[in-house]
């Protein structure tokens, strides 16, 4: 095996150099620092302290929802849409670790691999490593790294979650909950938890039977409900517009004076 490679990133390099490379958006350094943070290496925490957030903050969008509702496919479409708008995109895609062995099969990026050759897109799969709530142990830290590296839009995909896994909403500027038609009656739509705290509720697989009912039931209780067919790209421009509007209102609400 060839160990004498060009520019290997090592934790023996000083933290300042690594921080500079992350701030310059150097991908190998970004990736290695996220590994350190995932592994809870002390050097990771030291480095994080040196990463100042950029003046123009990233737009952070969390995508959560029940397993198999199409989160990864929706993200694939959002990546394409934001790239068309000239934005760079970072993705943190979380899947479950085995509670028995600690192993994991991280497969979210299968749906996003058409962006693997695009230098304006960084995708990182993260295993939960024992964390509950829908995110991985180091997702918040990794978000900070991607923001420091200058990505314009950061998409966070949670594990396939249950009703009360709402951690992502506290991390993201916009929280999107994904549902599919046929998952319950109108009382499901008024229950507390996921649908209550999401900024936008998306009914994906919206070409299936029961979509109209699901959208109608949800609109009774949730202000922003959209129908999408992510595999065909239907509803994506509307979703992009809704996210922009939601973030604009949020910025207004947080502007002092």
């Amino acid at each position, binding site marked *: *095996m*060839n*160990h*004498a*490679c*060009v*520019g*290997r*990133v090592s*934790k023996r390099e000083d933290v300042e150099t690594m921080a500079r490379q992350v701030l310059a958006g150097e*991908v*190998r350094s970004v*990736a*290695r620092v*996220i*590994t*350190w943070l*995932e*592994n*809870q290496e002390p050097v990771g925490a030291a480095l994080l302290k040196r990463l100042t957030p950029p003046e123009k903050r990233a737009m952070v969008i969390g995508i959560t929802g029940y397993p198999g509702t199409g989160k990864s496919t929706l993200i694939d479409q959002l990546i394409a849409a934001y790239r068309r708008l000239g934005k760079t995109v970072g993705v943190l895609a979380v899947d479950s*670790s*085995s*509670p*028995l*062995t*600690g*192993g*994991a*099969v*991280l*497969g979210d*990026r*299968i749906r996003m*691999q058409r962006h*693997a*050759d695009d230098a304006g897109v*960084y*995708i*990182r*799969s993260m*295993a939960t*490593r*024992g964390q509950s709530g829908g995110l991985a142990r180091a997702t918040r830290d990794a978000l900070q790294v991607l923001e420091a590296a200058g990505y314009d839009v950061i998409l966070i995909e949670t594990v396939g979650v249950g009703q009360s896994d709402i951690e992502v909403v506290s991390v993201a500027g916009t929280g999107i909950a994904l549902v599919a038609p046929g998952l319950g009656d109108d009382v499901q739509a008024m229950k507390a938890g996921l649908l209550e705290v999401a900024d936008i509720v998306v009914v994906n697989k919206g070409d299936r039977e029961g979509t109209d009912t699901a959208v109608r039931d949800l609109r009774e209780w949730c202000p922003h409900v959209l129908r999408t067919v992510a595999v065909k790209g239907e509803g994506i421009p509307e979703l992009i517009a809704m996210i922009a509007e939601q973030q604009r209102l949020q910025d207004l609400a947080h502007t002092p004076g």
Partner: protein
Amino acid sequence: MAIATTPIRVLIGKVGLDGHDRGVKLVARALRDAGVEIIYTGLHQTPEQIVTTAIQEDVQAIGLSIHSGAHNSLFPRVLQLLKEQGAGDVTLFGGGIIPDDDVPRLKAAGVEMLFRPATPMHDIVDFVKGLRVER
């Protein structure tokens, strides 16, 4: 319930025009059960996609399954791209239908290990578990 705090991360996938994924999925599943974090890319990847994915995911190793007969071009191409992009410390291993005559040449080129038909699963697991590279 003993869980290692720092699991090994390994990219597992298929390159080129090759749809035979039963074997690679079994390997991914067995490694998962051995406590490994698998980044599974799925089918039809180019060497370029494999290498950028490996760098973004900061994996310690890449395991490629090839049943198409294109191993003599695909493995060396991945190795070349890894070196060019400063990721020569990533271990490359593979499996699939690879004739006897091709094995020494691929190993000499830098493929760390090739698992061919009838390999016991625990050989693959032991190999990957032995890859403790410091990050």
